[in-house]
């Protein structure tokens, strides 16, 4: 065997060299099609260069040739773990432009669904982060509870993933019969299940070793890098759009904003787990407070006919339905930026309308896209293995990053 005991030649020239490693785009821990080009010095990460765009579908360009109602299915496909909150963000932006507000019952339904979506999104990462770090069990348990949410969403909308349930000025349909007992049952069961996940992971030595004190992002860095949502709150910044700029009926609901000060991977994971509890509390309040009434605004120029049977026997209803489906409705000239607290952070829609039934420009401020830049702000993540923990804890959904 050749003896290589020294790491540098006598002249001081190094015998080792930096290695470029492609992590992804086909790697389970990149949560989709993310490719990280890592510059490695042995096991140390010297530089990280994320390459994105593998899932770029041109949502913004497509939206310019779609009517406002047709854009809802496009928004579903942004953060596909929580479509109801994407729908809500888009509907709110268009409603602001039109100067209308959905009926109160519709607002409650939307908020309830957005919170279900938040749980569904947070659940996945609660299980997926430990899985990336070698604790497979939690993922299987969270999938069981996600299935319950899928069933609830299927009951309301008929779809499991891409719900497209919001409409401008309301929601598509009223809640189905027998829905309330089902969701109450879920609300009763779920807090105990959260306790189960905690028991699985809170004292899991491997999980703690790989997340506590790893990938620390300071509050200043987090703001500078534009992080939002749980990623920002885990760094000790107290900001939640639901509370600070309340939209829909959030000002009537009571909930805590979860803040952690550590800013490490564990804090980000923990924040999400605790937020699920708050979401359950919000859903329960929605169920208690939800009034009877219309679920769609009474404006034939904007909303589809409520009674679908009338479409088959009334000429006016048929024309209204056809007109809205084929040509959409006109939205007054103007510009609007409207942001909501999506599960991943600030989800904003910037829409420029030129007065036609299609947006002139729609920009999506996707929280995952910005949160992924958190990779540049982490400290205490020297090892390649730490990158996996950091990436998982930032919880990017690549469909939303790539738009």
């Amino acid at each position: 065997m050749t003896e290589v005991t020294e790491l540098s030649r006598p002249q001081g020239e190094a015998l080792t060299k930096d290695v470029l490693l492609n992590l992804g785009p086909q790697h389970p821990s990149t949560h989709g099609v993310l490719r990280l080009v890592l510059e490695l010095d042995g096991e140390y990460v010297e530089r990280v260069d994320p390459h994105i765009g593998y899932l770029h579908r041109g949502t913004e360009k497509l939206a310019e040739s779609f009517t406002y109602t047709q854009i809802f299915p496009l928004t579903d496909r942004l953060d596909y773990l929580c479509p109801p909150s994407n729908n809500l963000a888009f509907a709110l932006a268009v409603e602001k432009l039109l100067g209308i507000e959905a009926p109160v019952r519709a607002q409650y339904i939307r908020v309830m669904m957005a919170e279900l979506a938040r749980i569904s999104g947070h659940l996945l990462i609660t299980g997926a982060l430990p899985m990336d770090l070698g604790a497979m069990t939690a993922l299987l348990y969270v999938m069981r509870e996600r299935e319950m949410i899928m069933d609830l969403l299927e009951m309301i909308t008929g779809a499991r993933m891409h719900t497209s349930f919001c409409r401008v000025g309301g929601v598509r349909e009223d809640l189905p019969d027998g829905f309330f007992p089902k969701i109450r049952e879920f609300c009763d069961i779920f807090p105990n299940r959260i306790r189960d996940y905690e028991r699985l992971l809170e004292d899991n030595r491997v999980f703690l070793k790989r997340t506590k004190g790893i990938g620390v992002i300071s509050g200043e860095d987090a703001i500078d890098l534009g992080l939002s949502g749980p990623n920002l709150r885990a760094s000790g910044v107290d900001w939640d759009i639901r509370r600070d700029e309340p939209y829909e009926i959030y000002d009537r609901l009571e909930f805590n904003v979860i803040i952690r000060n550590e800013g490490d991977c564990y804090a980000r994971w923990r924040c999400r787990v605790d937020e699920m509890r708050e979401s359950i509390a919000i859903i329960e309040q929605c169920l208690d407070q939800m009034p009877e009434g219309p679920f769609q605004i009474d404006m034939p120029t904007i909303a589809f006919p409520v009674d679908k049977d009338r479409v088959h026997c009334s000429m006016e209803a048929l024309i209204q339905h056809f007109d809205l489906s084929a040509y959409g409705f006109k939205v007054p000239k103007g510009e609007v930026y409207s942001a909501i607290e999506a599960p991943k952070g600030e989800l904003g829609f910037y829409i420029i309308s030129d007065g036609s039934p299609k947006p002139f420009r729609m920009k999506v401020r996707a929280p995952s896209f910005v949160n992924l830049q958190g990779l540049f702000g982490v400290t205490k993540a020297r090892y390649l293995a730490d990158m996996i923990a950091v990436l998982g804890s930032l919880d990017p959904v690549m469909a939303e990053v790539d738009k």
Partner: protein
Amino acid sequence: MSGEPSFNPAPIMEHFEAAIEDLGTSHGIHVFAVPPDRIVEFCRFLKDHPALQFNFLSDICGVDHYPEMPRFEAVYHLYSLPKKWRVRIKCHLGDPPRVPSVTGVWRTANWHEREAWDMYGITFEGHPDLRRIYMWEGFEGFPQRKDFPLRGYKDTLNPFGAEGPPPTTPDIATRDIPQGGRLTPEH
């Protein structure tokens, strides 16, 4: 929201006077029009002024007003975490569009500006790493411009694309990236 004092543009207008234009409030957000050469100074002022503290950059995006002139626009959305205010800054740009980069003010501007470059071909001068972010290296044209067809241009891999060469092949001046950045590989 209701308890907070509302946003007052007076200190901004006092400092910048006629250089910027106050476009008033639209749907709850105050809008300013700022010339490109003052944008960095303006952003820094908004961020550092103790009564404003716009420390959070929500978004930067490009807009193409083709065929109107000035054709391009860079739009900035700022948020003040302590004050809970939002403002929008609009920056009209000529063709080819150039604007100084605000990456020195907020690091988060990095990817937003790369996206605007990728989609609209807006050159952010002084950006440390102005590369395409969504489209692949060597992609021709800027897909979100209004004169770029929705389905792209016809080639062997894209039989449904539009006929003909790209109408606005980016000139060298637009593709030239300020020193310090890595160049998109040309072919």
